[in-house]
């Protein structure tokens, strides 16, 4: 199945549709192209602030699109080094430049072993295909 979503090879992903760029003990995260597409035009975005800590699977922030408030669940544990202030004011950048200006947080990792639990681009692509197939079956 051909996918219409961009999935850069040099990034990790998780099943909550985050992309994760790991750089030593730090990681930058954002919403994947597939994630932003499912979410729709983003109107509001809230993120934890620098200095706050978060555990893997804990709430990192919230996002609102078309009257839906969704939770952003942290793909990795750590301390927030920086939240993208620009994207908080202009959250549509998540839609228009998911892997660039639409980045959300920079995190100092608490346990780099957690990275092993993330999906490679290939595994994420396979996971998306499974999701799309399920949707098609539902009709």
């Amino acid at each position: 199945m051909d996918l219409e979503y961009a999935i850069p090879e040099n990034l990790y992903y998780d099943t909550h549709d985050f992309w994760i760029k790991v750089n030593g003990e730090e990681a930058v995260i954002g919403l994947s192209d597939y994630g932003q597409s499912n979410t729709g035009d983003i109107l509001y975005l809230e993120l934890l602030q620098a200095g706050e800590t978060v555990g893997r699977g804990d709430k990192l922030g919230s996002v609102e699109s078309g009257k839906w408030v969704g939770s952003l669940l942290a793909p990795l544990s750590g301390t927030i080094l920086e939240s993208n202030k620009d994207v908080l004011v202009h959250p549509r950048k998540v839609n228009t430049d998911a892997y660039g200006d639409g980045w959300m947080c920079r995190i100092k990792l608490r346990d780099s072993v957690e990275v092993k639990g993330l999906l490679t681009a290939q595994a994420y692509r396979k996971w998306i295909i499974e999701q799309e197939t399920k949707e098609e079956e539902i009709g």
Partner: protein
Amino acid sequence: MERMGTPWRLLDMGAISAAHNMALDQVILDARSSNQVPNTVRFLQFSPSCALVGFHQAVELEVDENYCREQGIEINRRLTGGGNLYWDESQLGWEIFAPKNTPGIPKRLEDMYRLMCEGVVVGLERLGVKAHFRPTNDIEVEGRKISGTGGTEMGDIFLYQGSLLTDFDVDTMLKALKLPIKKLADKDVKSFKHRVTCLREVLGYLPPLADIKAALAAGISEVLGITLEPGGLTEIEQQRLEKELVHFQSEKWIRGTRIVSQANDLRMADYKSRGGLIRVSIRLDEKRQLIKSAFITGDFFAYPARSILDLEADLKNSSSNPLEIAKRVNQFFKSHNVRIPGVEAEDIYLALCLACSREGDRNDVKAL
């Protein structure tokens, strides 16, 4: 959709305070998330009346707090997204709590909205009302809004909720909420009121509340392919409710703590087209380049008659960037085959751009 085995709970707590209703949403999400309760459909009613803002909204921008205080209207904040609402004691709300991966429920939000609203549309049909889903998330009758909806999620569980206007006090709503019409003439206010309708107006009478609830429950059951069984709160939910209530009554919850600076400027513009005057009133968040809502009137005639109402719905929370406005208006005129003698899509675009611009910049607004 196929009827599934395990019955869903039908929960009806009657009329309770805004904080109780908001706390209950959290409690049921928690309980469903930890698998302590079944999937649930809940009716909600409010007493006293209340003004509710969406999760990311700021109370001071959306609600006339002095008026609400004087009238005993409660103010609270929803877990769900969307705009400000006035909810009096005659309105009925409906909610659906279930896992996001429930078979038959689409993952893509816009598809999910359509399915959730379809249950209410089918329910209304049982009452003799021909209603339709209108993207993004309204239910309308002949173009006039009768139900607004929104949702949220916790872990793998979602909450989708909507209001149903049964019998509605529009004048109090206009006073309680900050809407884009405060400075308009009586004729325009009348036109604004025409944007919404209620069961009493559509049917010519108001069916008993029990009949409305039965019809909605039947519609939701049919569309989702589920069986509903009336039930109450579990002991765990009741205990949690007591604790959560304190939080949902607090200023910290009602006013929020992390809301990014927002704006809610009321802007108006009159634009003279060949076909007549176009008057646009918008609520604009200039910093975020967002048209929060738009209201378009004038002495022109649109075909189909509901075109302007649908265009207003389409413009809600859309970009105020001139290029985006032009694209949206043009696309809307084409897809809805809009015809207004003497008024082109470009006239509407120019009127909107005038309203979005600052007074001093209005001479710079040009056709694209």
